[in-house]
């Protein structure tokens, strides 16, 4: 028999006992459906995290701080370190402090292998934002610098370009500031107010270049470098001229990896963390939950596998004489095996294709409904997303399980002696 004939015959055979095939297909359908949904959940959540990550920083960006603990605990009182006087509060649990970085530290960092650039991380705290030409109220706003390499998902407008101060506003500011819609805000000028160290308030105009969805980390405006440094200069008026920063943003050059550089940084007395590190625990938890859910789906598939074994054993039993006849006509045991295992793989394919298809259909609808309802607080989150690779993996996995299930019945069929089969009543 040709391979095409084997497939054709196997497909025809599986439809011969429709009820039995349908029941087995349903069992596989349930497993494949569950597996597709749980995978979709994982893909959806991880996609969302990835998008959030890219709005925070590129993968080749690292935040570098200088930890206070230089001496090991238990070696007596720590010696006085003049630099340690420059401790500043840092992100982390309350009370977390780091040693401030100065220009020398930045130079040290720049000289490390694999470092493309080092910029001190400045934080700018604008007081308010208003539409310069409208008569809107003033609104409080949180803004963060959008360094090169970071990307944000814009719902309108263009990414930053040029050296003029530019800002990307979150969607929820558009209406409050008096714009008709997202598109209407593009190209308009907004005024940002900032208070300096002496308590005097200054203003700076910026062009709205785009509009973004609020992220998982809140409703934050993004500023380009010109706006950031402009506001920082205004904010720093009246401060003593000692330059120190809590942290620095370090970019890796293409050849080096963050892991290698982290070791280097520790040797030099610094600590480097990537955004992925910061969210690592979160993704680990998500992956763990998905793994457990997938395990449940796999248990369902395992049960379905025994369904396939049962179906095929009955099929072999029913077709004993037919197998004997085919053998008498010179069909080899190997091809009989191929015939029955193909039938199992086809049943597996049928169940998993229908399961995955229905899961994708229901999942897409459900995810759309949830995104506009229950999960509307997390804009941009499609709770169920389906990527072709994981769908293909589900299909192949189920067909693999089906094939394994076929080994026993199919080899039993292949071993049958033609006369015993023909005598079988």
């Amino acid at each position, binding site marked *: *028999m*040709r391979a095409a*004939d084997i497939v054709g*015959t196997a497909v*025809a055979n599986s439809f*011969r006992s429709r009820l039995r095939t349908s029941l087995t297909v349903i069992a596989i359908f349930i497993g494949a459906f569950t597996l597709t949904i749980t995978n979709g959940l994982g893909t959806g959540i991880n996609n969302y995290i990835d998008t959030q990550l890219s709005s925070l920083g590129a993968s080749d960006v690292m935040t570098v701080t200088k930890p206070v603990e230089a001496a090991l605990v238990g070696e007596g009182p720590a010696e006085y370190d003049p630099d340690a006087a420059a401790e500043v509060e840092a992100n982390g649990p309350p009370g977390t402090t780091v040693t401030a970085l100065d220009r020398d530290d930045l130079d040290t960092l720049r000289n490390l292998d694999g470092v493309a650039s080092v910029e001190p991380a400045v934080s700018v705290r604008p007081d308010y934002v208003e539409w310069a030409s409208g008569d809107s109220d003033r609104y409080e706003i949180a803004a963060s610098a959008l360094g090169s390499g970071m990307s944000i998902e814009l719902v309108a407008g263009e990414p930053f370009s040029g050296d003029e101060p530019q800002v990307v506003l979150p969607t929820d500011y558009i209406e409050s500031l008096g714009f008709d819609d997202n598109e209407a805000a593009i190209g308009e000028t907004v005024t940002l107010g900032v208070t300096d160290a002496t308590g005097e308030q200054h203003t700076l105009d910026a062009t709205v270049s785009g509009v973004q969805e609020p992220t998982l980390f809140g409703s934050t405006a993004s500023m380009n470098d010109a706006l950031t440094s402009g506001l920082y200069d205004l904010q720093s008026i009246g401060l003593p001229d000692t330059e120190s920063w809590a942290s620095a943003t370090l970019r890796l050059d293409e050849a080096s990896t963050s892991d290698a550089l982290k070791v280097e940084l520790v040797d030099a007395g610094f600590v480097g963390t990537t955004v992925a590190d910061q969210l690592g625990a979160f993704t680990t938890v998500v992956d763990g939950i998905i793994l457990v859910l997938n395990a449940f789906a796999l248990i369902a598939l395992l049960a379905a596998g025994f369904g396939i074994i049962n179906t095929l054993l009955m099929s072999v039993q029913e077709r004993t*004489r*037919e197998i*004997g*006849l*085919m*053998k*008498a*006509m*010179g*069909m*080899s*045991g190997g*091809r009989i095996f191929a015939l029955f295992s193909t039938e199992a793989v086809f049943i597996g394919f049928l169940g998993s294709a229908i399961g995955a298809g229905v899961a994708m259909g229901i999942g897409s609808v459900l995810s759309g409904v949830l995104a506009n309802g229950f999960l509307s607080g997390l804009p941009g989150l499609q709770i169920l997303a389906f990527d072709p690779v994981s769908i293909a993996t589900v299909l192949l996995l189920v067909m693999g399980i089906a094939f394994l299930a076929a080994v026993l019945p199919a080899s039993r069929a292949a071993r049958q*002696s*033609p*006369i015993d089969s*023909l005598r079988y009543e």
Partner: protein
Amino acid sequence: MTPRVLSTRNLNKSYGSGVNRFPALTDVSIDIEEGESVAIVGKSGSGKSTLMHILALLDTPTSGDLTVDGTDAARLGGKQLNALRNRTFGFVFQQFFLTPNATVLENVILPLKIARVRSGERRRLGREALAQLDLADKAGNRATDLSGGQKQRVVIARALVNNPRIIFADEPTGNLDSATGAVVEDKLFALNREQGITLVIVTHDEELAARCDRRIYLRDGRVVDAPIVDSPSRTEVAA
């Protein structure tokens, strides 16, 4: 002298072992020549079906030699064995063994499918074989929708389709009434006469056996000389 297509020497076949050992065939030495029609006659339990199975390479003897077409059957490997079964033999069974839900044509072309003949070609050959048995109009019918006589003719078409040199028929008319049985017999003997296909018929029906060129009688697994049956000796020489 016509060449021997099948020949056995001191063939033994037994089932079981030890005290349960049961001899099915004892010391069977027969020759079947190309183009002959031979009846293997015996009561049930005489070993005639076992002998046919061994001749058709469906079973192996416990001891003794079997030569098929000059080749020692014991030396055939799995692949050659399958090729020989597929190309050389055709089978007609008492119980038909038709695939119930498949069409008549699909049933007939099964040996060609196994022989890896291309789809178009095998349909053509299948239709030819059906036409030869006056069943051309039944090609699209389901095998289960046919009468017994028609079913057996479909089985003959299936045995014929791969152009075999030997057709083995196990009680070909056992399930048929005498009228339809006669039609099936005519078809089988016509193949023997017109196409020179060697016919090996296993039967306990003396009338059918009488139509064959030669009869081999089996009793309790041994070849015996039967009482002379009054049969018209066939004068036609196989083509």
